[in-house]
C-alpha cells in the first residue's frame, strides 16, 4: 500500500505539545508523519512549504494555535492569511489543493491532533503519490494542450499630439524652474522604437513623446534613481532634487504601492499622470493587460495630461480571464503539464523580475549564493519555483501592469499567475492593490481583524 510522505510543521507552543498529549493519551496517529517543530505557524513561510513539495513531500500539514491564542499574538493570523493564497497558487500550478492543509490544535487537544493527522494522511493516501517534481512524472497520455484563445482586441487610433505637447510643456516648466532634477518619460530610439528616456534639461524636453507604444512602467526606475540621487551631492538648500515621472493609470497604482511600502516618499517625486485608452502590442491589437483594465485616469498625480475620462472596460472578459477559467476547469495534472510546458522554455534571464516595478528586494530570494530555497540551475524545477515564488511575493501587490510578460523574451504567459492571485485576493479581502496608499492586507495584521475564540 502507498505510504504518503507527510511533513507536518507544528507550532512549538500548541500543536507540538498537542502531539505529545496525543502520545501520552496513547491515541493512534499516523506513523508517516514527519514532524518539524517551529516556533510559530507564522514562521512557516510559503517558500518553506514550496521547498518541502520540491523535495518530494506528498502532503504538507501546518498546525498552529487557535486564533486568539497565539503566543506571539498574531503569528497564526499571518499563517491564516498566507496559506490559503499559497494553496490557490499551488493548485493553479497543478498541485492538488488537498495536499496542503492548515489547521489549529491546542496543547490540550490530543484527540483533535490524532483526528486531523489521520484525516489528512488518509486524504493524501487517496490522492496517491505526488507528481510535483518534473522528472519521473507519469506521461500524460490524455493531456491536451489547453486552448489559448488568440483574439485581438482592436486598437483604436487616437491623436496623441496634445498629450505629447502637454508632457513636453510640463517637463520644460519643471526642469527650468528646478522643481525636478530629472524627468523619466518616453523617448524614441534611432530605430523608431518607443523606450524610456531620462531628461535632465529643458532643452532635451522635446525628446519626450507620448504614443500608443508607451507600454513600459517607468515607476520601476524611481527607487534606484532616488537612491542614486541620495548618494549624489545635495543642492544649495541642502536637499536633493525631486524626480519627475510620466505614468499611465496602471503605473500610477504602482506608485501607491511603493508609497505604502515606504520605498519612496511623496515629496521626492513629481508625477505627471497621462490619461490612457490602452496601449498597442507589437503587431497591432490592444496589449493583453489593457483589455480588462478599467482605469482611464491615473489614481495619483501632480499634473494631469489629457482629459479625465470615466472608467470603461474594453471588454467584459479578457483573453487571460478565459485562459484562467479554462485552467481552473482542467484537472490538476493538466494544469501541471500546461505550466511545465510553459516554464520549459524559460531561460531564467530574470527579465520579468527586473522589469517588475514591485520586485525591488535588494537581493532576490531566488538568486542567493546558497541554494536554500532554489538551486542555481536553469532546470524546470528551479524555474517553476522561481515563477511561483515570485507570483506569491507579488500577491496583493501586483497592479497588473503586465511588464513581466511584455519583457519576457520567450513569451511565457507569466501574468496569469499574478492575475489568478489578484482575483483571489479581491474575493477574500475585497482589496485591489494600488488604488490607495494602503499596505496589502495579506502582509499586515490590523487590530480587531480577528475576533477571539
Amino acid at each position, binding site marked *: 500500500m502507498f505510504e504518503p510522505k507527510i511533513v507536518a510543521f507544528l507550532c512549538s507552543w500548541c500543536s507540538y505539545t498537542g502531539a505529545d498529549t496525543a502520545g501520552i493519551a496513547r491515541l493512534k496517529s499516523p506513523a508517516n508523519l514527519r514532524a518539524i517543530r517551529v516556533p510559530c505557524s507564522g514562521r512557516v513561510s510559503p517558500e518553506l512549504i514550496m521547498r518541502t513539495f520540491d523535495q518530494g513531500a506528498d502532503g504538507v500539514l501546518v498546525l498552529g494555535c487557535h486564533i486568539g491564542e497565539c503566543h506571539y499574538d498574531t503569528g497564526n493570523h499571518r499563517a491564516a492569511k498566507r496559506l490559503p493564497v499559497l494553496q490557490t497558487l499551488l493548485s493553479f500550478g497543478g498541485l492538488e489543493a488537498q495536499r496542503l492543509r492548515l489547521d489549529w490544535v491546542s496543547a490540550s487537544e490530543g484527540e483533535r491532533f490524532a483526528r486531523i493527522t489521520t484525516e489528512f494522511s488518509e486524504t493524501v493516501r487517496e490522492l496517491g503519490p505526488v507528481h510535483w517534481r518534473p522528472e519521473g512524472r507519469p506521461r500524460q497520455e490524455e493531456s491536451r494542450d489547453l486552448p489559448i484563445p488568440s483574439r485581438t482586441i482592436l486598437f483604436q487610433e487616437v491623436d496623441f499630439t496634445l498629450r505629447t505637447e502637454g508632457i513636453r510643456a510640463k517637463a520644460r516648466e519643471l526642469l527650468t524652474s528646478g522643481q525636478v532634477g530629472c524627468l523619466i518619460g518616453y523617448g524614441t530610439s534611432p530605430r523608431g522604437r518607443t523606450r524610456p528616456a531620462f531628461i535632465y534639461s529643458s532643452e532635451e524636453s522635446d525628446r519626450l513623446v507620448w504614443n500608443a507604444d508607451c507600454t513600459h512602467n517607468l515607476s520601476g526606475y524611481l527607487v534606484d534613481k532616488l537612491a542614486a540621487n541620495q548618494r549624489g551631492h545635495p543642492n544649495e538648500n541642502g536637499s536633493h532634487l525631486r524626480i519627475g515621472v510620466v505614468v499611465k493609470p496602471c503605473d500610477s497604482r504602482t506608485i501607491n504601492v511603493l508609497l505604502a511600502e515606504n520605498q519612496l516618499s511623496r515629496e521626492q517625486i513629481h508625477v505627471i499622470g497621462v490619461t490612457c485608452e490602452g496601449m498597442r502590442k507589437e503587431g497591432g491589437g490592444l496589449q493583453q493587460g489593457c483589455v480588462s483594465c478599467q482605469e482611464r485616469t491615473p489614481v495619483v498625480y501632480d499634473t494631469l495630461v489629457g482629459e479625465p475620462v470615466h472608467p470603461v472596460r474594453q471588454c467584459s472578459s479578457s483573453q487571460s480571464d478565459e485562459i484562467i477559467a479554462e485552467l481552473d476547469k482542467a484537472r490538476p495534472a493538466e494544469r501541471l503539464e500546461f505550466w511545465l510546458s510553459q516554464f520549459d522554455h524559460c531561460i531564467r534571464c530574470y527579465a520579468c523580475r*527586473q522589469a517588475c516595478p514591485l520586485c525591488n528586494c535588494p537581493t532576490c530570494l531566488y538568486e542567493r549564493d546558497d541554494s536554500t530555497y532554489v*538551486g*542555481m*540551475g536553469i532546470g524546470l524545477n528551479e524555474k517553476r519555483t522561481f515563477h511561483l515564488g515570485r507570483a506569491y511575493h507579488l500577491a496583493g501587490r501586483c497592479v497588473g501592469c503586465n511588464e513581466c510578460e511584455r519583457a519576457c523574451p520567450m513569451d511565457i504567459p507569466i501574468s496569469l499567475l499574478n492575475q489568478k492571485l489578484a482575483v483571489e485576493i479581491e474575493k477574500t479581502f475585497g482589496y485591489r492593490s494600488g488604488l490607495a496608499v494602503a499596505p496589502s492586507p495579506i502582509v499586515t495584521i490590523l487590530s480587531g481583524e480577528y475576533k477571539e475564540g
Partner: protein
Amino acid sequence: MSKPDPNAKSRLISQTELDSWLDGLASKQTLIAPRDVSGVVLYRPVAGSGEILAGVPRPVMSVKELFFPPTERLLRIQKTRTGINVKETLPEDQTIIFGVRPCDARGVRLLDALFLDTAPADPYYARRRANTTLIGLACRELGPTCFCTSVGGAPDDPTGMDMLVYPAGSGFLAEAISEKGHALLADTGWPETVIGGAAPDSTDHFPVPEKGRWLGHFNDDYWMKMSERCLSCRACAYVCPTCRCFSVRDEMLGPGEFERIRCWDSCAGENYRRVAGGHRPRAEKGERLRNRFYCKFLYFPGQIGRSDASACTGCGRCIEVCPVGVDITEVLQDLERLA
C-alpha cells in the same frame, strides 16, 4: 570573410527531396530544427521534416544552447562508506542540426575559440561539437534587426557549418563545407551543378570602432547615461550566440549525494562580479552594461589575438529582446561619434 567559392560544386534539389532526406536523417539520429514550442520558435528535436516550421524561421534562442546548455551537470558526487565517488557525465548523443543561420554558425566558431582552441579544451563542449553536424540555411532576406554584414558576416557565410543549403528559386542548392558535410552529401546522389546562390544585400552598415576608440572612452559619462534605462536583466546575454559566461555550484540531490552544475551567468547581473567581503567592482549598471560591449568588441578579440574577430555576429537578437530598447548598433554609432 570567407565567401563561398563560386566554382564549388553544389547540388540542386527540390523542397520534396530536401524533406525526404531530412526524414531519412531523423530516422537514424537526433535531428534538431526550428520548431514551434507553445508559440515560440526554438531549436528542438523533430520527428521528421513535417515538424519543422514552414520557411525555417530563425529561433529566438541561438544554437549556443545546444552546445553550451543553460544548465549542465558536470559531475555526480556520492558519499560512500569508504570515501567519495565522483562520476563525470559526458554527453553521448549524435545530433544533426538543420536550419542553422550563418550568424549562429559563426557564433559557434567564436565559442570554439574559447572552449576548444584555448587549452585546456572544455570536454563537455568538445564532445558535443564532435557529435554534432551543422546544416546551415542561407538567409533569403535580412531581418529588421540583422546587421551581420557590419561585423564580418554575411547572409550566406559558410563559417562554422558542415553543410550549407541556399534557397534557390523554388528549390535549394546544397553545398558541403566540411568533411562531415561531404560525407553526408556523398550518400544522397543528388546531381551536381555549379550555379551559386545569390545572397541578399544589407542596406544597414554600422561602423565598428577601432580598438583605440574603445580604450579612449572607457571612463566616459556616456556609459552611465546610455545604461540608465537598462533593467540589468540577462535577456541580451542569454539569447546572444556568443555570450559564454557561466557559474559553477554544487547542489545537493539528496542525503550524501550532490551534483556539480554549470549554468549560464551574465555580466549584467548584480551578483556577477561580487567578491568575498561583498565588494562589487561593477556596482553601477552602467559599468555592467559597458562590459557587455567591451567584451564583444575589445576583450574578446584581445583574448583570441585577432583584432578582426569581434564576438558579435550581428544577429540582432539582443536588440529584439531588450524590453527597454537598448541597441548595440546605436552604441557602435555613438562611440564612433564621441569626441
